[in-house]
């Protein structure tokens, strides 16, 4: 093709994507009205976790991996302890297993509410931030803050604090709550349950762009419960594997313009996170969750990335109900943890971080020292899919100004609640920031 004088190259750029965790940028090139390159650039500096875990003792791992992410530390701790317990043939059952679900519920409530109310809703209502939104909608923002606080209270009771909890260990916890401490949370959780129902109703009423995509959904799918810590990995394309087989099917590839790797399932992009979980596990929702979802009048499967805020809200409701259910049947275990006998080996585990499946693999020697670590966070798995969404979305905004088109693209990216801090801990490449 010859270059004509009329050939026009246009660049749509977002230098720093706002209201996401961590730092990323977007660069789109359009030539003669046709989208050429879509590059979601992650310029978080590498922090080398997988490298410096090597040589540390296994019991230090939960404290270290929590620092990969301040927003979802429980997810890192849970994937790590499950992988290590596989090596030591430790089985955590009963009340201890329930408490692990419960602390994960706390993280989902806190993280999802942060995203729904403070990071995402401003897009639908036309504000720059939740604080700006509070001027016109004080009661809504206050409800969101209180709901988020309920999640934090749960994490704080079980973990000592909500950012980087300290009680999670291989074999269980360093301390478990008393019955009356859990009972003390009930009143606020009952309020939170109603607030979560209101939240689903509220977000279902937003104005959504008509933007259905053809996704391969990937989530854990346990036989009889909504997924947190266990379950085979299921894809809507028919893959059903255990976490042990993860690396046979999922491969990370390097994109030269981003400092994060991109993960593919048998060579193709896929989607993890609330939409994928809900689509694959809606039959495991609690009765109230099913009802709230039905009331939205959205038909399953949900294939519009903008509906992720609905899925997230339904999951907040589920997590609250699950917590209440666990509190009602809680009998403190005889010991806060089960004994662990160190042995050498390799273990793999996958759990459901708020943003999707999080895979860990560790190799441990006979002294309990880590010899190898591999971590695949959810945002690296979604990164390819975000770019494909943007490709599909861009034609609808090309008539707009660069600034407005960029704003539209940012909204697509925010549907994913991308956690860029998480996505870059395993970076294999670090390129100068594009200025």
């Amino acid at each position, binding site marked *: 093709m010859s270059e004509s004088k009329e050939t026009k190259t246009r660049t749509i750029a977002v230098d*720093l994507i*706002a*209201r*996401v*965790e*961590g*730092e990323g940028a977007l660069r789109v090139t359009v030539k003669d009205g046709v989208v050429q390159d879509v590059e979601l650039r992650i310029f*978080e*500096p*590498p*922090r*080398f976790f997988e*490298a*410096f875990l090597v040589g*540390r*003792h296994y019991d230090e791992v939960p*404290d*270290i991996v929590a*620092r*990969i*992410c*301040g*927003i979802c*530390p429980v997810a890192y701790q849970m994937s790590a302890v499950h992988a290590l317990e596989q090596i030591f043939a430790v089985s955590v059952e009963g009340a201890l297993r329930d408490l692990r679900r419960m602390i994960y519920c706390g993280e989902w409530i806190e993280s999802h509410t*942060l995203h729904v109310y*403070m*990071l995402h809703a*401003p897009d639908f209502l036309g504000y*720059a*931030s*939740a*604080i*700006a939104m*509070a001027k016109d909608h*004080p009661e809504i*923002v206050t409800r969101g*803050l*209180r709901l*988020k*606080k309920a999640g*934090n209270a749960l994490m704080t009771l079980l*973990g*000592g*604090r909500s*950012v*980087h909890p*300290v*009680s999670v*260990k291989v074999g269980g*916890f*360093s*301390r478990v709550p008393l019955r009356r401490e859990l009972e003390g949370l009930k009143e606020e959780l009952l309020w939170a349950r109603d607030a979560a129902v209101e939240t689903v109703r509220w977000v279902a009423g937003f104005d959504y762009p008509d933007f259905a995509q053809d996704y391969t959904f990937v989530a854990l799918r346990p036989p009889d419960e909504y997924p947190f810590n266990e379950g085979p990995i299921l894809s809507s394309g028919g893959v059903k594997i255990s976490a042990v087989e993860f690396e046979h099917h999922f491969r990370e590839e*390097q994109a030269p313009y981003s400092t994060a790797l991109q993960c593919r399932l048998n060579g193709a992009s896929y989607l993890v996170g609330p939409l994928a979980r809900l689509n694959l596990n809606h039959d495991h929702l609690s009765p109230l969750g099913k009802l709230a979802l039905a009331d939205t009048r959205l038909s399953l499967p949900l294939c519009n990335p903008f509906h992720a805020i609905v899925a997230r809200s339904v999951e907040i409701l589920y997590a609250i109900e699950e917590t209440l259910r666990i509190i009602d049947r809680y009998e403190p275990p005889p010991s806060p943890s089960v004994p662990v006998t160190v042995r050498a080996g390799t273990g793999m585990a996958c759990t459901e971080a708020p943003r999707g499946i999080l895979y860990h693999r560790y190799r441990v020697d006979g002294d309990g020292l880590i010899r190898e670590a591999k971590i695949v966070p959810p945002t690296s798995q979604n990164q390819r899919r975000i770019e494909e969404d943007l490709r599909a979305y861009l034609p609808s905004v090309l008539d707009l100004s660069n600034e407005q088109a960029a704003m539209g693209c940012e909204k697509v990216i925010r549907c994913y609640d991308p956690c860029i*801090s998480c996505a870059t801990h395993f970076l*294999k*490449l*670090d*390129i*100068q*920031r594009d200025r």
Partner: protein
Amino acid sequence: MSDKNKVKPLVTPMRPKLGIFKFASCDGCQLSILNLEDDLLALGQALDIAYFPEASSDMREGPYDIALVEGSITTPEDAHRILSVREQATVLITIGACATAGGIQALRNWADVDAFKRAVYPSPQYIQSLSTSTAISEHVRVDFELWGCPIDKAQLLRVLTDLLAGVQPRLPTHSVCIECKRREIVCVMVAKGIPCLGPVTRTGCGAICPSMGRDCYGCFGPAEGMHEGPGLPPNTASLAKEFHQRLNLIPVEVLRRFRGINGAVKPFREESQAWERNEA
């Protein structure tokens, strides 16, 4: 340490302009700001939050009356960017272990980073990362340091309200042990023989770890010497000796205790290096 924490009383405009900046970190300290929940909206009224990309797409340029800085310096461009943050800020406060001490990612400081890159990276020629992770104060003047991994949100609120009131902010610098005694928590080291960093770690968390039945792992950084006076290092050598002689930790285990979340800050760094020599 302590002369850094003398802030010139802020000649505050009615609603000081606040900027929140991120370098290499997990975002947990910024999340602690959002976790202020009950006080967040009031904070938004008392301060003009002009730059906080994590929470707002309204990003306004400086100068800022107060800059909160999260994260450590790990890349050449970040070493450059912090200079511009400093230029734009009247008062610069580091929040958290990464910004104040280099953070967990400073564990790279002991690695042979070139060999490390060649071993780990398929294309080491692209690696622009610095061979170290360093605290903000190693690059620019810092007016106040808020310790913790993550910071304690009540401490942050206190520092901000002090600044708004034109008062020199002050936070306790004594050890976690004092906090344990106040809370009547049974000593995990004396009662259970668990090697605990509480005696040399700065208070501020509320002695969370011992209250959860485990050892303190030093996430609030070094306390200041209790007998010798504020500004002086804690007695890490004595504690390390206790770990080794009474609790039977081998030298590399003593080393690992000190080389953690705040491993790069002087008292902990020097103690871990002393045990590296013992090991060799």
